[in-house]
């Protein structure tokens, strides 16, 4: 068992936070099980109640634990924190979070620009677009519905590659030689239509997190993605650093 190292300059509550997080991520503390009481944690790790409270609060804030009034503290289904300025694929994000994820490709075909797609992708209206619709699942539970649009002439390979096991970003970068240099995220709320609700297991009209992303390679727009995420399974994480 990992214990608190009092010679370590890191603050005690941070050490305890990492130990407890490790227990959750390794499955040592399974989802929906009650964690030991505050007193038990104090005794086990030889720390004060204040240290335990801060560590547990931080885990609850990050979606690892939930507190139930009068019953105790329980391990949650993981909520995936997502950096705002990430250039990270869903696969990488899931691997970092250590969860069992899968992808269902619902559609992969070619369309012409409709609505304002030609503006979003900065192409003329006679250019073909690859359209990919994927449902992302964790432990076989749908959490994210994603529609991706990319100009066919930039990289036609996504029409043929295995998208259930490979990341689209990897295909773009490794096989088409298109390096993604920046991403613009637009975050809002979407109200689910009948089909979106059915796919995500939510009622029609329910609110969900909407993330629209435009991926750039230099100044060229490479891909536009519209993701609808279950609000109970995602958290946005912003880290701000003061510049000296």
């Amino acid at each position, binding site marked *: 068992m990992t214990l608190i190292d009092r010679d370590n300059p890191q603050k005690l509550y941070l050490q305890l936070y990492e130990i407890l997080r490790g227990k959750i991520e390794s499955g040592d503390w399974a989802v929906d099980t009650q964690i030991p009481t505050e007193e038990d944690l104090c005794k086990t790790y030889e720390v004060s109640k204040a240290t335990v409270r801060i560590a547990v609060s931080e885990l609850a804030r990050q979606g690892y634990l939930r507190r139930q009034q009068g019953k105790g503290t329980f391990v949650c289904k993981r909520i995936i924190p997502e950096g705002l300025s990430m250039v990270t694929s869903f696969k990488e994000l899931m691997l970092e979070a250590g969860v069992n994820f899968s992808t269902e490709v*619902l*559609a992969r*075909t*070619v369309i012409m620009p*409709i609505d304002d797609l030609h503006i979003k992708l900065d192409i003329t*209206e*006679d250019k*073909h677009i690859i359209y990919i619709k994927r449902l992302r699942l964790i432990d076989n539970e749908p959490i994210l519905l994603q529609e991706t649009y990319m100009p066919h002439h930039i990289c036609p390979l996504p029409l043929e590659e295995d998208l259930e096991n490979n990341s689209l970003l990897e295909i773009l970068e490794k096989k088409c030689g298109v390096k993604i240099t920046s991403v613009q995220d637009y975050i809002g709320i979407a109200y689910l239509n009948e089909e979106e609700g059915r796919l995500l297991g939510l009622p029609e009209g329910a609110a969900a997190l909407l993330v629209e992303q435009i991926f750039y390679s230099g100044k060229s727009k490479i891909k536009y993605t519209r993701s609808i995420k279950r609000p109970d399974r995602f958290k946005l994480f912003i880290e701000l650093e003061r510049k000296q």
Partner: protein
Amino acid sequence: MAGGKTVKDLMVDVFEFPHIPYWFSIRQAMRIIKKSVLESAKCIRPIVILVFDEKYNLVGTLTHINILKGIEPKFLKHTTKAQVPEYSQEGLSVIWDSLFDKESAALAEKPVSEVMVPAKLFVEQDDPVTKAAYLMLHNDAILLPVLENKKKLIGVVRMIEVFDEVSNAILNE
């Protein structure tokens, strides 16, 4: 036919034609024809949109004629199921004009799958041109999709190229 040309020698790349999925509306298809054919420098003929399913299989073709038929009010269509008195086609066309805004606009929201011509005939890239000509003539088709290994759509062979090739064979005889 002398010369031994195959479909592959005549076919046009599939990406010369607009692509849409079967769930797009007639209205969307109309705009696509306008933007990617009529107003485009390319303007390839015949005006045809290729219609695909979720797995990028060709399921049909759509011409401007199919689209116009799709937004024609129901009562203007010929009936074969009942005996009806003779009517004036010119008179009916005037009625369509008066109902155009309401009824045709509503019909334009239908998916293209309801008005497209289903893709049933295909040729292989190594098939002789005469096979394409035969299939076109006997099925009233203006083009045929060309497959590679009976699976992958790689191009389209058009009546005009088939005609040109057959004409060459006759004229040079």
